């Protein structure tokens, strides 16, 4: 069974029908980029995958667990699904190390020593080991986002959801974050990205999913989809953004 199974999911915000029967399967180790215009439902779909948003019909099964927005379920899911946000959402009152250690200590019950080793290990992975005792506001946006990735990795997720994680960054800081993602992809991490970085989606992603009007409009191997989009909607989207 695929790691992420999305089956005929519908989501409404009141009268607004945001997701209109989404089907999507993602296997372990895949790097999937979800692209589309704003309002196409791509961020909503991502947030449904870990229970941050509730959906009304259909089913999402991640790592053999059905996703619901029930508080307990979301916490259980946190062990298999990590998430990185556009606005980093680091805890500003904690140091970089404490940001990463908090959940492993409280949720996985690691000792302080084990948690610090874990934090150091993950920070090394994103190239920021020397920042472990600094506060987030002493770091650049790119560094903060790398810390947020390290924080998510510390819970050893099976899949990492990235919600437009480079959109809030200055252009010169985007590269360092994408390089971390590239490294993760090379290590075999399952990545699902909602992104506007088309070059990254094409060159690093295995698969591209184009969302339009609350549906998966087109999907396929990244390079092929970009080279020969088959729907006029994707053609016009690609020519607009590339």
């Amino acid at each position, binding site marked *: 069974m695929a790691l992420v199974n999305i089956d005929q999911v519908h989501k409404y915000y009141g009268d607004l029908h945001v997701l209109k029967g989404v089907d999507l399967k993602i296997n372990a180790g895949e790097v999937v980029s979800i692209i589309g215009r704003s309002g196409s439902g791509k961020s909503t779909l991502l947030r449904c995958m*870990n229970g*941050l948003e509730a959906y009304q019909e259909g089913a999402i099964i991640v790592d053999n667990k059905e996703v619901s927005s029930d*508080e307990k379920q*979301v*916490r*259980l899911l*946190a*062990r298999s*699904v*990590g*998430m990185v*946000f556009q*606005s*980093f*959402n*680091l*805890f*500003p*009152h904690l140091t970089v190390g404490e940001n990463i250690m*908090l*959940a492993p200590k*409280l*949720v996985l019950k690691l000792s302080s020593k084990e948690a610090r080793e874990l934090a150091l290990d993950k920070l090394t992975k994103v190239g920021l080991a020397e920042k472990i005792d600094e*506060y987030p*506001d002493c770091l650049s946006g790119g560094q903060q986002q790398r810390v*947020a990735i390290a*924080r*998510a990795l510390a*819970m050893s997720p099976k899949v990492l959801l990235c919600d437009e994680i480079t959109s809030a960054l200055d252009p010169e800081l985007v590269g360092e974050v994408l390089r971390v993602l590239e490294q993760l992809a090379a290590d075999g991490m399952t990545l699902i990205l909602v992104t506007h970085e088309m070059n990254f989606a094409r060159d690093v992603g295995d698969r591209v999913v184009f969302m339009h009007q609350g549906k998966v409009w087109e999907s396929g191997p990244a390079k092929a989809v970009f080279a020969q989009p088959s729907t006029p909607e994707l053609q016009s989207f690609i020519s607009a953004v590339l």
Partner: protein
Amino acid sequence: MIEFTNWDLLRNLLLATRWTIALSLTAFIGGALVGLLLTAMRLSGRRPLQWLVRGYVEVFQGTPLLMQLFLVFFGLSLLGLDISAWSAAAFALTFFTSAFLTEIWRGCIDTLPKGQWEASRCLGLSFQQTLGRVILPQAIRVALAPTVGFSVQVIKGTALASIIGFVELTKAGTMLNNATFEPFKIFAMVALIYFALCYPLSLASQRLEKKFNGAR
């Protein structure tokens, strides 16, 4: 008629000030504890609890403190509970303080980005862990200045306890005035003592606001 020196007057007022301070502290500490509980209830996401808190806050914010005092003092004695002026004042002021602190803290917590809750949730932290380790440590910095500022309102509010016969600073002033018929002098002293209690707190509140304003 007995002659009172100024020192006699001041000394007696200062002795009564002890009760103003005791009542203020009781109300403030009690109000903070109840307020913390109400704040946790409000954040729990359970609708009935949220409505309860909302109703509580609206009732105590929407009625005069004096009426709350009367209702506790006379209401409970109607029910056959013999309640002292001290207890009635302490209870009423605790309710009053908790309602306002809950509202002040609500504002402070609401200024924190929603992403702090979401990130905590995605990391698997429970509601209590999120509140205790992520939200409150940040909210406290924001809340400190308005909370200390509100303590001034509590101190001034204790003056109303004089009406149900509790002998604190204002009541002592009234009693001394009845004996000396020097209202201007007596109440000037009373006012000065209140000012001496409240001014340092106002000052502290302003300092705190400067210190934490815009800081992380």
